[in-house]
């Protein structure tokens, strides 16, 4: 003879059934309300879409180089390292001839601006073999033209001025290194704070990025994006 089961609790059944969808509905409503509170004001007071920077180069004055010729150097090779400490060393080896320092990209830009405003010093003769365009300028830094964005290009250039990769990091390792830093920029252009979103794993590289950000002075952002840069920041993705 089988043992009969105890009668089910009718109360318990009835209590559970209406509660579960109720909780789900409440959670859903909260998400919708919070989401709407967050998104709707942004839809009505939305800053213009932020664009990624594209680096603008001034195109050099010159003629396009015959692609069948071996290339020429865009700039002379970096000068030999500065003299080391003056430990007395008997040596009769010839030393490389002193080479004139090549202007940096920033200096070339400044020269070009000076020419544009009529404040230029007498210019040197451009290299007649320099690749460029017939519409270019002697101070140009690129053989071909690109288009760029304004403020983010300025941010890019300012950080790049201080972005130094230690040469002790091997070339092979440089191929794979990358790091992400989130930086908040104040209305005056000051970097309010920054934090690593992703470290590179190489202490020398990460230290160099810290130094670059600490040393960078930025121009004040345009009004339409100032609030966004202060509150949500900008992501800086570094590769060597």
């Amino acid at each position, binding site marked *: 003879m089988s043992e009969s089961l105890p009668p089910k609790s009718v109360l318990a059944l009835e209590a559970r059934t209406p509660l579960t969808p109720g909780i789900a509905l409440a959670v859903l409503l909260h998400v919708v309300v919070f989401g709407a509170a967050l998104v709707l004001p942004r839809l009505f007071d939305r800053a213009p879409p932020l664009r990624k920077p594209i680096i603008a180069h001034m195109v050099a004055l010159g003629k396009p180089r015959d692609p069948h010729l*071996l290339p020429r150097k865009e700039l002379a090779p970096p000068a030999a390292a500065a003299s080391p400490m003056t430990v007395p060393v008997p040596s009769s*080896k010839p030393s490389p001839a002193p080479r004139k320092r090549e202007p940096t990209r920033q200096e070339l830009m400044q020269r070009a601006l000076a020419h544009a405003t009529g404040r230029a010093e007498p210019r040197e003769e451009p290299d007649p073999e320099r690749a460029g365009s017939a519409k270019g300028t002697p101070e140009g830094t690129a053989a071909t033209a690109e288009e760029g964005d304004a403020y983010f290009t300025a941010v890019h250039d300012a950080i790049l001025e201080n*972005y130094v990769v230690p040469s002790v990091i091997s070339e092979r390792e440089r191929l794979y290194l990358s790091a992400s830093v989130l930086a908040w920029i104040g209305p005056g252009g000051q970097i309010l704070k920054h934090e690593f979103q992703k470290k590179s794993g190489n202490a020398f590289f990460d230290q160099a990025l810290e130094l670059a950000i600490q040393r960078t002075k930025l121009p004040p952002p345009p009004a339409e994006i100032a609030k966004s840069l202060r509150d949500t920041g900008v992501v800086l993705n570094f590769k060597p």
Partner: protein
Amino acid sequence: MIFLLALLLAAERPVIDLSGGRVQAYPLAMARPLGVQDAGIAVQSVLSQDFERSGLFKLLDPASFLARPTEGLTNIDYSKWQAVGAQGLIKISCDAPGAEVKCDMRLYDVAHGVELLHGTYNAPRAAMRQIAHRFGDDVVRYFTHEPAIFQTRIAYVRETEQGKQIVVADQDGANVQPLTGASINLLPAWTPDGRTIAFTSFRDGLGAHVYTVDAVTRQVRPLVLMGDFATGAVYAPDGLRFLFSASLDDNTDIYLSQADGSAGRRLTDSRGIDISASWSPDGKRIAFVSERAGSPQIYIMAADGSDVRRLTFQGNYNQEPAWSPKGDLIAFSGRDEHRIFDLYTVAVEGGKVTRLTQNQGTNEKPSWAPNGRYLLFSSTRGGKRQLWETQPDGSNQRAVTSERMGASDPAWGPLPASK
């Protein structure tokens, strides 16, 4: 909820990609040596030159140092070193009991105030330079995690009144030792174990043939006596085979042989000259020069002679390929439109050509350091042809030799066997 908020915020953030940071040397201070001064100063001098040549370090001017000259090996006032811009600090203390020199050498991280390296190095007084080279190698290896080359040797051809002789020297040009007499000897090439050097010689009076010389005993042996023109032997990375060029039936081709000179077979068979073979670091491919398309250009092929592909299309005279130890680049010398030979690299994948030298005399015969960080080459920029070195981007070019009548045909030796 928090996750959703974070996602919304992240989606709104602009992203700036930064690459192409300036590669800058690591600022390093070398404190005045402690202990026996003449030994300490001599070791420090060689170390300074090694670091300077490496392009990795910027040595700070000792005149700017704020720390006491008598500051010990330990108990360092790091703030004084930080104040002069040092990120690394080297301390040396040498002792010279009898004919031996013993140096305690240390590397410190100034920013974090910690010792990074510490070792004691001994050598006979006559070989004191080796102390600096060994510590220098340890420092470079610490930073780069790559093999360092301060203890490597180079071979080259020295011009003399009597002719051209094969010599070996330390990588910095010091400690030169002749290996052969001075007939016409050319194109030295190391075996991977660094014990033997193959070279091309006219010593037998029957044309050009390939010989070997023992780098220690200087014993010379014939290796290839084929025909009246056999030249340019280069050993495979495994040391079991070598390539050379030889002229048979008025056609110069590339041949492959076992290391003892046996079982030679022809790899190329084109109507034009095929010459100047160079192995890829994995020994599976070969770069060479061929005139098959009308002008000398750089080609690559599989180690069995199949799968030939032209690599250079710019310029009308490209020669002397040298495959980099990292495998990605082939250095070569090319004649530009001014009919001057200069150094270039070509990317094995993609074929992008980069110029390394320009407006500095004639520059030829590139040979890679075994870690791929430097190239040795010959240059006439100072008058007589001498050996110079450069980094693969063309930076940090420095003279290596100062031979009275000139030097050419450099061959950078292998890394020393690990002890």
